[in-house]
């Protein structure tokens, strides 16, 4: 009987962990613009401290939504897709952002995110554009 209690307590603890849900590409809808999330190189997601995940079809949608609701401090995770590594979600606050005319993103901001600055610099060299960090990109998009 003891064991059953222990097991159920453990399951309860672990099942309540706040963590990012994987994005269901092609099924999930963007929390801001309602478009189906399809682009593995530009998708994004945030997870509230209560544990709910909200997917976005584009990094710009996530940033616009955060600016609109002004609730960045209520988020447990803010994640963006790594352009160099499709399907991989990385920490938005540590990512490097590139706005390049030659790399189109789903909502027209030409914005991509990279996990490493070297990768971003490399792509910038090939495609042109300008690099930003998290604070700078938020300022840029709220213009």
């Amino acid at each position, binding site marked *: 009987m003891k064991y059953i209690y222990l097991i159920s307590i453990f399951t309860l603890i672990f099942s309540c962990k706040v963590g990012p849900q994987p994005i269901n590409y*092609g099924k999930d809808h963007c929390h801001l*613009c*309602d478009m*189906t999330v399809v682009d593995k*190189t530009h998708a994004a997601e945030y997870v509230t401290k209560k544990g709910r995940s909200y997917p976005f079809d584009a990094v710009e949608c996530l940033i616009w939504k955060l600016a609109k609701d002004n609730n960045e401090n209520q988020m447990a995770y803010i994640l963006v897709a790594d352009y160099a590594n*499709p*399907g991989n979600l990385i920490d938005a606050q540590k990512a490097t952002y590139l706005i390049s005319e030659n790399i189109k993103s789903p909502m*027209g901001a030409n914005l991509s995110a990279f996990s490493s600055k070297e990768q971003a610099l490399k792509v910038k060299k090939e495609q042109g554009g300008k690099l930003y960090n998290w604070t700078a990109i938020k300022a840029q998009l709220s213009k």
Partner: protein
Amino acid sequence: MKNFLFFFFISLTFFAQTKTITVCPSCTIKTIKKGVLSANDGDTVLVKKGVYKEHLIQLSKSIAIVGENYPIIDALGNKESIFAIKADNFSISGFKFINVGMSFTKEIAGIFVTNSKNFVLENNIFQDDFYAFIIQSSKYGVIKDNKITGHAVNETSSGNGVHVWKSSHIRIEGNTISGMRDGIYLEFVQKSHIFNNTSKNNVRYGLHFMFSHHNEYYQNEFKKNGAGVAVMFSKHIKMHNNTFHFNWGTASYGLLLKEINDADIFDNIFEQNTIGINIDGCNRIHYKNNHFIRNGWALKFTGGCYSNVFEFNNFMHNAFDLSYNSRLNNNKFEANYWSEYTGYDLNKDGIGDVPFRPVKLFSYVVNQTPETLVLLRSLFVDIINFSEKVSPVFTPDNLKDNTPLMNPVNPIE
């Protein structure tokens, strides 16, 4: 002098005559690439039947490239477009493009056009290509009577049928598109016409508009697309005589309107969709003479909408005619036909004598708790709907059609 001029012009046409370059597997010119290289402005490159394993054919001349009996251009999965074009006054017709490779980071198409104008791309067949057409920063193009089929399984690894970006005055006409991600995708496109196309079984949208103003689409058929048709962030769009049907699924709409202003939606048929039209943040839209037949929701309002007018529409046998989550604002519902209407017409002028309230209380309940949908058509739901009808408490008091029609407008068989 007159004779001289006559002779002069005759000789001019004679000397200006252009040549035709023939390409075939057994000719001296065996590849389309070489054929294009040896052509001058005004020439025709005639390609005979055969299989040409080519990609990245650069075109910067004003020539016509004509395929005879659909020669096949096989890109063999290479990550380069088959035709890469930057030219004015050209045409490509009568080819079959197959196996254009896919990439997550690069746009690759059967025909990739940039910074061009005055072109005609017609009568081509596309099979299993990543993108069929990509048109960028171009003007005055015609994309006509092409057949595009893909085997898109999921949305991430597939491209769009006709993908137009930052262009204007494009005519997309008579194409059949299936099995792609979005059938037709327009972003930053102005003053274009999309008509007589059939877009079906695409994994995402049959037609997808973003930031594209002053466009018209008419007489198109959108069928069984993953999420229907989406028209977003655009102004002055005219949509008429289109058919949206069989778009079923939790995430599926006949038509998804998001932040659309000043549009006309006339004479369309919405049949058997989960949601006929999903309306989010749309202003000054005129809905007239549309048919909403057997949808889950005919209309679903999900955001602040102002000054929309609904008149002379037929709402027939929908599970919910209207779902509304805010105040009426100044939207108008006038003189529509509602198959649910149970009023009477004593003076026989064709207009019902008691107003019709299209929002049922139960649709509010479903909005809050979607799982309650299993109770649909139960006695309990009928009772709460009836009591709400008698004395409206939850539904906006002024959300009603004061002049409901007794008979459908221009019914279709």
